[in-house]
């Protein structure tokens, strides 16, 4: 398809706005000097500095630990919740559940953050703890805001699934549990994987909720970078951002590859099915 000049121009404009900031960051992460206005020479200096900064690396480790745990736990809980909601008979109840799970998603982060913090402090005081915020409270907070996204990804897959599939499996002698793991899970797997990836990225870049629920000795990367504003942010952070950008890019490419592969297999399977049906009708 050929693009009209105006459409071309528009596309380029959008691309520039989307990627120019990242390109600038990328270029200046290789700057020899500290300045953001003068590029004095190519060097890996800031990358070396980054890998020597144990506090920043500690914050990266904290962030990853939190993102991995929160995304895995919320994926398991979210999938279970989606299956539960899907199996609800009453339409009325189902609508209520949908609304309830959507609230944390629509709620502004700052309200979720403050209310979670207040709750943790309240419960902590109830048990007489000296400090109520820790890694665990942060984990609970992250699971809370990741859950609805997982449910939102899994539920449609359940609805798309042919309902007679698990029934057929049970007819053929599977226990309900076995049918669930052998038939339903593979059917909704793309939804689960997308949910997992979404939860992971959401947890990774969350600032507001983490900010309110961060406790002693456990600060994540976004908080650490934000706190550098008394002085200027050092170019070490440009280096770190560049690395994160490329890691995310690679992850995205892998997940897209994975997606298109599974879409391909689904398409092929459907073609086969329709061919067979045609043959059968002949």
């Amino acid at each position, binding site marked *: 398809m050929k693009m009209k000049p105006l459409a071309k121009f528009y596309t380029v404009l959008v691309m520039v706005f989307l990627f120019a900031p990242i390109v600038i960051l990328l270029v200046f992460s290789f700057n020899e000097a500290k300045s953001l206005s003068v590029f004095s020479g190519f060097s890996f200096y800031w990358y070396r500095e980054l890998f020597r900064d144990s506090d920043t690396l500690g914050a990266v480790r904290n962030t990853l630990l939190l993102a991995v745990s929160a995304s895995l736990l919320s994926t398991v809980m979210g999938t279970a919740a989606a299956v539960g909601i899907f199996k609800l008979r009453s339409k009325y109840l189902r609508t209520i559940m949908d609304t309830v799970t959507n609230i944390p998603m629509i709620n502004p982060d700052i309200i979720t953050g403050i209310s979670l913090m207040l709750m943790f402090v309240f419960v902590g005081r109830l048990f007489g703890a000296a400090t*109520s915020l820790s890694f665990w409270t942060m984990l609970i907070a992250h699971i809370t805001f990741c859950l609805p996204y997982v449910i939102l990804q899994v539920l449609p897959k359940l609805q798309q699934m042919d309902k007679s599939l698990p029934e057929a499996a049970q007819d053929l002698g599977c226990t309900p549990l076995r049918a669930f793991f052998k038939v339903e899970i593979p059917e909704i797997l793309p939804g689960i994987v997308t949910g997992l990836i979404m939860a992971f990225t959401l947890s990774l870049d969350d600032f507001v909720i983490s900010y309110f629920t961060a406790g002693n000795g456990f600060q994540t990367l976004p908080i650490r970078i934000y706190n550098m504003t008394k*002085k*200027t942010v050092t170019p070490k952070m440009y280096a770190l951002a560049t690395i994160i950008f490329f890691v995310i890019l690679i992850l995205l490419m892998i997940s897209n590859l994975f997606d298109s592969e599974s879409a391909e297999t689904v398409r092929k399977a459907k073609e086969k099915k329709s061919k067979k049906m045609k043959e059968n009708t002949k």
Partner: protein
Amino acid sequence: MKKLIPILLLTAMLCAILLTGCGGKDTLTLNVYNWGEYISDGSEDSFDTIREFEKWYEAEYGQKLKVNYDTYASNEDMYNKLSTGAVSYDVVIPSDYMIARMAAENMLLPLDYSNIPNYEYIDESFRGLYYDPDNVYTVPYTYGVVGIIYNANVVDEADAVDWDLMWNSKYAGNIVQFNNSRDAFATAQYKLGLDVNSTDHANWDAALAELKTQAPLIKSYVMDEIYNMMESGEAAVGAYYAGDYFTMLDAQSDSVDLRFYYPERTNYFVDAMCIPSSCQHKELAEIFINYMLSEEPAIANAEYIYYASPNALVYESADYAEELGEEAMEILYPGIENFSELYNEYAYRNLDAETLDYVNTLWEELKIA
């Protein structure tokens, strides 16, 4: 492949949790809460204060120690976190006005100065300042003075006098002003010789009138952006802290020639180490504060932060003076004999809510106009 991903993630998570879990029971923990980028942290071959303290402590007391070092971005952030009681820290380093507020709200513990023998190196002129008149709660860490920075390639040397440079119409469109009400109003108040802590509305009205005459000359109202704007030559005149001027000087582009001077009346600040009431290891916190005052860490921190130090071990050190250079020493330490006098007269204090409200309405009026 499909099964591999979750399994990998799960093992990664378990490993990570196990790693964080093993702190060891006989390890002491000290929780320190400081501004971001406000300690020498080992980057660019500097002294790694926290790690060195852990090592020093173990060698001295035969006990393992782990320092949890967290950072905050503003006094208000720190205050909010502490006042909910959700976290507990052993050492914090707030600015003067916040110390006064925390002391008034019983959020600070009195220090046992016998555990902090190095306090003797703190110059007399930094004791008994308004935020802690009886020297009960604080050990000063850094101090700073606001001055005017200009690009000598644009600005005529003869025009660089007092606050007038920031009102000089020759440099219209080249001047940047603070983008927060307190600092911006203070520039006008210092220029006019008014009290920056006044509760008198007429005082603030006069300052507003002065800012309004300046408004057409202003390129923009900035905070952190001032670094890049001054370094690149995009702006030629602005006020900021002396220590930050050197950060800009380090990164200025070839076409820019930054200079610095102090106006007659200007703002002073002190950041000081305190022990908040949530502290769990008070003696350990005092040992840490004392360590921060000893020669090597104190000099390393002063070199890293680039703010002036009230510690005689620092400003009398020949190595430090050599590292900074003559010009920087002159600018950072412009004679501190009468510091407490100047400080108590010109530094910001907490304004009452009514005045703050009034100032904010005036500020909005200025920004809208």
